[in-house]
């Protein structure tokens, strides 16, 4: 156990330190001359028209939801994939049924145009 955890913990600590340093170093070394114009949001030279935190297309939300469903599907298939050889024909049929049900969902989403990006 320790031969796995120690390298991973060391990697996490060192990577965090390196990245943290890279993020903060120009805060320490660089000049600091903040002006009002510099602080404006960049909109190609025009004065910014209010905050950018507005609403956006519901289609992105649909992408995230479909991703979630399919990600859970893929993750649930991993145990079967590892034990593919020992689970045999019975396991294959069970998993194919599982995939088929979700395949129906995918075909439905496809046919109804949810995967189109107009």
């Amino acid at each position, binding site marked *: 156990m320790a031969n796995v955890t120690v390298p991973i913990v060391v990697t996490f600590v060192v990577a965090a330190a390196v990245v943290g340093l890279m993020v903060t170093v120009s805060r320490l070394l660089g000049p600091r001359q903040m002006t009002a114009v510099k602080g404006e949001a960049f909109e190609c030279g025009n004065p910014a028209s209010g905050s950018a935190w507005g609403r956006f297309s*519901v289609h*992105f939300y649909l992408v995230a939801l479909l991703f979630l469903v399919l990600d859970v599907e893929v993750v*649930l298939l991993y*145990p079967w994939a590892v034990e593919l050889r020992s689970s045999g024909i019975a396991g294959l049929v069970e998993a194919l049924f599982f995939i088929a049900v979700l395949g129906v969902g995918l075909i439905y989403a496809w046919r109804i145009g949810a995967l189109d990006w107009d």
Partner: protein
Amino acid sequence: MPAWLFTFVAVLAVLGALGVILQRNPVHSLLALVLVLSLIAVLFIALGAVALGFLQAIVYVGAIMVLFLFVIWLLNLETEPREGGRLLVKLAAAVLAAMLAAELAALAWRAAPGGAAAAGALHQGANYGSMAALAKVLMGEYLLAFEVTSVLLLAAVVGAVALARKDPGAGPQSSTPGRLEPPLR
């Protein structure tokens, strides 16, 4: 897993959970929740349920929290108002919290040395917590649940598509008064 390490990670997780409910910016709350879920995955792994811990990280941190982030953006939630919800909501939350506390206390009592669950809890085989062990129960004992999950996910697809579909008669979506721009795409 040494007790001090467990305590350390667990305390961090509790602090993160406090962050979730005390932050007023929803995106900060969400990040705190990401931290909590990652730490719980670490706890799972450290306690021997390696496969389960990684699955927790992949599904909750990598997928569900991203969806939450999209929902926050979609609804354009600004800082949460200071007055909490209605009295009824608060009451319901209190009752639920009390029930959860009672449940946890009962579990702790059962798992304490000499309790009912303590004898069997540490009965771990050689491949306890591995993917192979998970596959065995998932494709055997819990096969029905496994297959029903696919139907549940199918329902989620249909629901998502139905929610996001444009209502043909409803006109443009960005009808918020005072907002001229169409939704960003």
